[in-house]
């Protein structure tokens, strides 16, 4: 599902963010990406949804070679990927339901069943009854649920999350990870960059550790620390 071959990323400023990274993630896997601040976790995630392009090497995601992908193909590729961030990236002038429906409407998937699908997703992420609330009327955890609902509404093949619980307390974080795990159980490949030590330790999933742009560890059922 995901393959990185000798991938290096040098930012304009000359910063080497990733240094000859090789990895393979199969369909249906759940992968944690851990490492100290500045290690290159976000860079790795950004390469996976083609927010950034590799300076060297090859990135293949869901059958697309992202290095050679044409500009106009990017939107269609992105529809196969759901992305969740630490800061939720919601639209604050739109309700919960509108935020989730947004992903369908602006990709032309609009139709009669939009409302039905959105309501169903709202109940999946545990926000039943809050569909008409605005994001600033919700707690951080609830906002992240909205973001996850938006990421999942198109049934993506891959769910990417960059520190999805960075702004949340431990209990709420756990709930969010339960939700992400649920998507994984239904078949979505999941890659999560995180600092949530306790959760990584309790979930016992594959752990890839990055340090200074290099993969230093890749454990099948790993913990946050070696």
């Amino acid at each position, binding site marked *: 599902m995901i393959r990185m071959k000798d991938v290096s990323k040098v930012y304009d400023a000359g910063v080497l963010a990733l240094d000859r990274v090789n990895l393979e993630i199969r369909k249906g896997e759940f992968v944690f990406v851990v490492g100290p601040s500045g290690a290159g976790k976000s860079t790795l995630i950004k390469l996976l949804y083609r927010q950034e392009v590799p300076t060297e090497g090859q990135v293949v995601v869901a059958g697309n070679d992202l290095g050679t992908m044409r500009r106009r193909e990017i939107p269609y590729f992105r529809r196969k990927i759901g992305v969740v961030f630490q800061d939720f990236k919601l639209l604050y002038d739109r309700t919960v339901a509108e935020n989730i429906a947004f992903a369908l409407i602006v990709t032309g998937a609009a139709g009669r069943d939009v*409302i039905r699908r959105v309501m169903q997703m709202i109940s999946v992420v545990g926000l039943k009854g809050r569909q008409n609330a605005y994001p600033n009327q919700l707690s951080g955890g609830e906002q992240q649920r909205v973001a996850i609902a938006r990421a999942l509404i198109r049934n993506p093949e891959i769910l990417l999350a960059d520190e999805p619980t960075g702004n949340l307390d431990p209990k709420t974080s756990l709930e969010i990870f339960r939700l992400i795990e649920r998507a994984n159980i239904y078949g979505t490949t999941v890659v999560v960059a995180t600092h949530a030590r306790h959760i990584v330790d309790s979930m016992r999933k594959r752990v890839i550790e990055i340090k200074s742009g290099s993969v230093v560890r890749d454990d099948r059922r790993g913990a946050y620390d070696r």
Partner: protein
Amino acid sequence: MRTSLAGYLLGETGKSIWRNKLSSLLSCGTTALALFLLGVAFIINLNLGFMFQVVQKQMEIQVYLDKELSEDAYAEIYEAVKAMPGVAEVKYVSKADALEELKEMFRDKASVLEGLGEDNPLPASVRVNMVEAAMIPETVAAIEQIPGVDDVEYQAEAASRLASLGRVSQAVSLGGMAVVGLVAIMVISNSIRLTVDAKRHEIAIMKLVGATDELIVGPFILTGIVLGVLGGVFGASLAIGLYSWVVSTIQELLPFVPILNLTVETAVDMLIVMLSTGVVVGVLGSTISLRRYLRV
């Protein structure tokens, strides 16, 4: 909740115009001014055509004859002119006829003519109507060669003066339109840029969830078009309204000036031209501000 793509496009367009009321108004205003000037040029053009027609119909060559010649000599000249190719009608006006006409013209103001006394200062003349206006300059040149012809006057001179006057005023209004049109494009572009800036976050999310560039820029282009068309409607109304007023005023005060009544068909033509120009202005304005964004 709006769930259709069309609803989304229209909703976003409406919102972006409403949220930037002031710059939207400014965009509409400058577009309206540009299109108003286009309308003025359009009307001038229509009237020139019309005036040429009128003038050509009335075109008559006035051949003034030497005062010292005899009636026989006058008759000879008359015959010579009549024999020229392309001449449709010739009329001889004697000195007495000319005075009679003048008296007729100033019937109410007999005092004006009192000073003339017994002396008739008016020359005898021959009036020529041509089959075709294009033959006039040639014919005039030939008539001037006839001995005993003092002076030749014809309205084609007026026509050519009219034409150059028309050309100048047309150039001025078109030039004005071009300048104001460019300003309108810039103002619209600026207005759209404000919206784009205000919506950076939203655009980023659209890209994230896989919206195509076309869809992302759609509302902005549509906003430009709406502003351009609104400007067009105002500009056209202004031009048409003002013109109707001018026509009625002129017909009242200067009834002999040929001026074209704006028919429904021409008004519609004008509206089409102006609204399409409005669309072009709007599209240009919005694409300029999106160009940089589109390349990203």
